[in-house]
């Protein structure tokens, strides 16, 4: 496991793993989409819009999966303090935010035909909205603290504090929802999932997971390069007699 602490090893591993994950993601998503549109039955109650479930649910899972990845990277930062964990943590946040955002938008569009409006403060969607806020706050934290080590440590602690709070938030939002809404008109826990619907959903979910892993590795690679560029720029600045002028557009 320690070999992963070496950025150069990670760069080489990423160079091999990214194409594989990317290809797997593309293949699975293609098969999944085919199944979703040509094989899976419409729902007797909702009709065709149930097909939105096949991206809404995987996006929700990925939103939470990304947080778990970020939290474990946060542990890596706090316990082993190696920079690849910082990179993994920092690059997981935007991806998690993207999947959570997709989950919210597709959830809102899926609900529109039934609710009549784009947004009802439904318990699960509201919890995902709070998760998105946590992601955006962590991204803002990364953008504000310039010094990499300090930013990583602050984000790590906040991520773990967030991890502890997510179940509490989920519970309190559910309680808040039932408190104000005696019987929710239509529980969007989704229709009962039959075998014929389950397979496309699982394929889409696994495909999305590989997509996340590929994007995550690509982002980690970028973070390693960014930190290396940052270090070389500082070296170039302090070395008084630089052979070549160092060109550096703000890569932040």
């Amino acid at each position, binding site marked *: 496991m320690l070999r992963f*602490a*070496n*950025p*150069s090893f990670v*760069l*080489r591993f990423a*160079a091999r793993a990214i194409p594989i994950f990317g290809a797997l993601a593309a293949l699975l998503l293609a098969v999944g989409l085919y199944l979703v549109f040509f094989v899976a039955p419409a729902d007797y109650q909702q*009709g*065709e*819009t149930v*097909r*939105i479930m096949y*991206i*809404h649910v995987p*996006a929700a899972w990925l939103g939470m999966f990304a947080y778990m990845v970020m939290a474990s990277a946060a542990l890596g930062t706090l316990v082993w303090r*190696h*920079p690849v964990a910082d990179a993994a943590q920092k690059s997981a946040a*935007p*991806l998690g935010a*993207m999947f959570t*955002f*997709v989950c919210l*938008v*597709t959830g809102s*569009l*899926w609900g*529109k*035909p039934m609710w009549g409006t784009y947004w009802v403060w439904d318990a699960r969607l509201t919890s995902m909205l709070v998760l998105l806020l946590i992601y955006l706050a962590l991204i803002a934290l990364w953008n504000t603290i310039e010094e990499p080590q300090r930013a990583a440590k602050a984000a790590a602690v906040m991520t773990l504090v967030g991890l502890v709070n997510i179940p509490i938030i989920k519970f309190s939002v559910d309680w808040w929802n039932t408190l104000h809404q005696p019987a929710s008109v239509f529980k969007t826990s989704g229709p009962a999932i039959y075998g014929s619907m389950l397979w496309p959903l699982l394929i889409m979910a696994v495909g999305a997971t590989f*997509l996340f892993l590929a*994007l995550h590795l*690509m*982002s980690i*690679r*970028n973070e390693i*390069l*960014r*930190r*290396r*560029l940052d*270090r*070389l*720029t500082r070296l*170039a600045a302090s070395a008084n007699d630089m052979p*070549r002028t*160092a*060109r*550096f*557009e703000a*890569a932040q």
Partner: protein
Amino acid sequence: MSHDHAFFIALSYGVTAIAVIGTIAAIMLDHRRLKKALAAMGVTVAARDDGQHLD
């Protein structure tokens, strides 16, 4: 497939596609820019910097 159902399905998949492709593009552009900046500083990207591997 009643008309508005198709609209919402298309919109959902459209937004998802834009978000995913946008993210992929952003990451790849960032990668290209970083490699260009590193190259400008005379460092090959895959250069093994064993010296400070725990940068």
